[in-house]
């Protein structure tokens, strides 16, 4: 399975090779999508994990034991779909395919699993309906 998580870690964790350990010890393919890491401050990573469910679960347990806050990405992005007018202004800026138009009913289709938290939709939406907490 594939899943995306935001990892928040404390200043003293910044120099620990977390991704290396996830790969080596838990056999998880890691794709780093975004990162804010400043020495002496809290760090934040957006990663995609590719492995079987069991391995991912063990990897997440390891992270939690290391005091890393693990948040599934879907919990940090949201679209107020009931207010959407389905104009499509967010679609052409979306690099990941998370936002697409259903060409039968002309409604916006949002697939949070595909999102890479780039935030372009947040700027493009004329109704300001997206919420993305990654950088905050």
């Amino acid at each position, binding site marked *: 399975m594939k899943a995306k998580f935001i990892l928040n870690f404390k200043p003293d964790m910044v120099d620990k090779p977390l991704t290396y350990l996830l790969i080596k010890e838990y056999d998880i393919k890691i794709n780093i999508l975004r990162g804010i890491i400043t020495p002496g401050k809290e760090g934040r990573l957006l990663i995609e994990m590719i492995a079987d469910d069991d391995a991912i679960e063990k990897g997440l347990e390891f992270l939690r034991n290391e005091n890393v806050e693990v948040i599934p990405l879907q919990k940090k992005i949201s679209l107020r779909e009931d207010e959407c007018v*389905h104009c*499509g202004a967010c*679609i*052409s*800026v979306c690099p990941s395919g998370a936002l*697409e138009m259903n060409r039968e009913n002309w409604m916006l289709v949002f697939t949070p699993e595909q999102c890479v938290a780039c935030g372009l939709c947040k700027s*493009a939406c004329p*109704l*300001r309906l997206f919420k993305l907490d990654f950088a905050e």
Partner: protein
Amino acid sequence: MTNRTYSEINQRIEKGDVVVLTAEEVKVLAEKDGVETVAKEVDVVTTGTFGPMCSSGAFLNFGHPSPPIKMGKVWLNNVPAYAGVAAVDAYIGATEHSEIEDEYGGAHVIEDLVSGKKVDLKARARGTDCYPRRQVDATIDIDSINEAFLFNPRNAYQNYAAATNSTAKTIFTYMGMLLPNLSNVNYSTSGELSPLLCDPKMRTIGLGTKIFLGGTQGFVAWNGTQFHTTRPTNDHDIPMAPAATLALIGDLKQMCPEYLKAAVYERYGISLFVGVGVPIPILDEEIAKAVCIRDSQIETHLQDYGAEGRPSLGVYNYEQLKSGRIEVDGKEITTGSMSSMYKAREISNKLKDWVAKGMFKLTEPVQGLPSNTSLQGLKPKEGTQ
């Protein structure tokens, strides 16, 4: 050859046996049974569009306080409104910005009013013998003011150029965010559902035409500003650049926020989504043929908004643009729309329903729209930049 007149159509609407289809449905019928059948069997075709239309606004009359005031400057929720008309009239323009908030403007004031929300009014005046008051602060809403009518100088553009950006930096435009290096394309139309593309010669649309506007009935008041009827056309009589427009008027008190929605375009400003639908009477076969236009037959230029003069990078039709991807210089580019097809379809269906239920009769234009018009530029004074 005339198939039917306005009065025959209205009699059928009254009797409840009018044949009305949306502009999408009529195309299916035409492909199955031909345009002759459409001309013979269909009385009315309904169109729709729901796009950001900056050239929108509303006239409001607030009523007089005692003693009265000749308002010189007016603010609604801290958004300046134009008060250079008689004493307690003002015009709130959709694109006007709040003086204190970044993402609030005239369009939001209009949406707040139609949503029934309270709005703060601040007015200042010089004071005269007949209007001695110099200032007033009040809370108003749509029911507390006398008249409120939407009057939009330029709506329902007949075609518009698609936009992209060849430069190395993202640019922020009224056509949305245009990413660097030809990475996205935005267009704005409902295409084969769009009013002025379904009657490109405007044979049935003119002054006084009754339409769907903002969720209620409105009227075509005049030709819209920047009304251009001499753009090059393609083989299907479709102008391939921004051409005709409509000035629209309607009672704001009857409108609803589902069809008037404030929009914010990053680093560009405020605009207003306006729901417009025009019923087209199928008077003859020429009009029947026109309403059966397909997206594949409606073409527009793709312009590079990053380059000076916005040069054309090619001609694309709306079947291609609406597909989600087009090829430019051998590169596949994602397309997106500024205008909602979902709402355009909803509007065409709603208008169809009104006509079918006898709630909406058709009006023959009092006068046709101008022909042979083009645009003039503005020449700055010599020695100025």
